[in-house]
């Protein structure tokens, strides 16, 4: 099993968001969770990724219970690309020593290569503050390349195309295929049609998880 969630409950300032969640995801499996906005989907992913500490219950990701250890095993693409005010290269490597071939491979898989090739400074192009100098789709593909470069076992997707138009979404979805190939995937969205490629789909409602 890549992910095991047992008896997970979580609340913000007394408001219960997740209530007694149980879920097991096998290695290489792709699981989708659908639910309304504000229904706790992002919270669930933040807990699985180790961004939040578990209040009640347990989460195991690739054998790690601890939040810091879980973070090492996951790559996550969120609604907002969360780019640093730095170059494309630094946004992909996050300052780590990653060799040029791996960066190029990540760019290929994220469908960035062609666009980067048109830039005078290539990978060293500054993306601007909060990614202001690149489009939403390009920013999201840089975020995907960053996730690919991490080469984590588990990929978490939190509505990565929700802020994009249809044409841009198609390019990002193609890039996501490069990221999720052969990985364990947990994908949350408020649009069920986005999750059609998943092996299993669940519905998150009232803080509880139901079969779709």
């Amino acid at each position, binding site marked *: 099993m890549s992910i095991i969630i047992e008896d997970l409950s979580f609340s913000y300032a007394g408001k219960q968001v997740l209530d007694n969640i149980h879920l097991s995801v096998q290695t290489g499996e792709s699981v989708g969770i659908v639910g309304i906005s504000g229904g706790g989907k992002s919270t669930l992913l933040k807990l699985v990724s180790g961004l939040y500490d578990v209040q009640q219950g347990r989460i195991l990701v690739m054998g790690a219970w601890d939040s810091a250890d879980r*973070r090492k095993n996951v*790559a996550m693409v969120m609604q907002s690309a*969360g780019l640093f*005010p730095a170059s494309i290269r*630094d946004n992909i490597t*996050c*300052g780590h020593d990653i060799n040029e071939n791996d960066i190029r491979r990540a760019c290929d898989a994220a469908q960035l290569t062609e666009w980067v090739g048109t830039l005078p400074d290539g990978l060293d192009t500054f993306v601007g*503050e*909060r990614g202001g100098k690149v489009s939403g789709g390009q920013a999201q593909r840089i975020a995907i390349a960053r996730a690919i470069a991490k080469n984590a076992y588990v990929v978490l997707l939190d509505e990565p195309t929700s802020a994009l138009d249809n044409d841009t979404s198609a390019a990002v979805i193609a890039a996501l295929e490069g990221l999720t190939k052969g990985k364990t995937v947990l994908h949350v969205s408020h649009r069920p049609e986005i999750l059609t490629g998943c092996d299993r789909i669940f519905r998150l409602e009232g803080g509880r998880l139901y079969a779709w």
Partner: protein
Amino acid sequence: MLGEIRKIFKVIGSGWRYIILILLRSPISILMTIVNALFLQQAFNAIAQNDSGQLNIVCIIFGVASLCTFLYNGTVWSVYAAPLVTRMESGLRDKLFRKVSSLSYERIEAMPQGEWLTRLNTDVQMPFSESLPHTAIAIVNICVSAFILWSINPAVFGWVLLFVAPHIVFSQLLIARAMPGLNKKSLEATAKNTGELTALITCADVALLYDGKDYLMKRFEKSSTDLFGANMKIRTRNALGAGILPLFGLGGYLTLLVVSSEWIADGHLTFGDLTAAFQYRGGVLLGSLMLINCIISIQANMAGIRRLNETMAE
């Protein structure tokens, strides 16, 4: 420079109120110089004539004159200056905020967040720095002191001028000229530093997931070091000026003392006249120093005022 100042006061409005403020404040320094000079002149003349009655009258008049000057200054400050400047500054901030809010998102995105914050927090204070009123105070002090000094003894005035002129030239060459550029770099470094700090907060989730905290911290530290370096250059220039320039003042003082001792011995000048001349010399010298500092400060503030004008003109 004047064009930019005029432009920003046109945006702020009520520029004539600020002119009244400058006019009200401009005689303060020269009033104090004259009161001190007349007191010393009359007091030493009375002492030289062994006239204790005259000395008592001089002391009472000095006390009353000092009190009046103090009250005038305090009244202008508390009743007019402070409320006016506060009102004008908040008005400008309000106008700037409305202007920035009306800009396109694309325009806002084009500049680092720190740049906008610097405009709203720091730049709006620059048109209302003390430099403008102090410039007027200094000019009035220099002109009136120089005129009185000339009327006491043209030779004394000549000696004072001989030391004040290189003082001003040296300050201009060494400090004032470099200040606008240095201040611009400092503002840019501040904006970059704020941007890096913002990234530390807004990208905290990505930094945690991808173990990029050290990377962001290093970037923030580098921008902090750059900011420190930019500010240090400004402080070094100021310190250099503060260290070297008093030499001119001291040199002039000693020279005047040596030269005037002969005039006193010959009966062309009383000791009271000399002490009064020193006061007026102080008026010229301190006025010049104040004027130089104000010019440096105004030039430094111009970077911010220009940025405000650019934004308001968009």
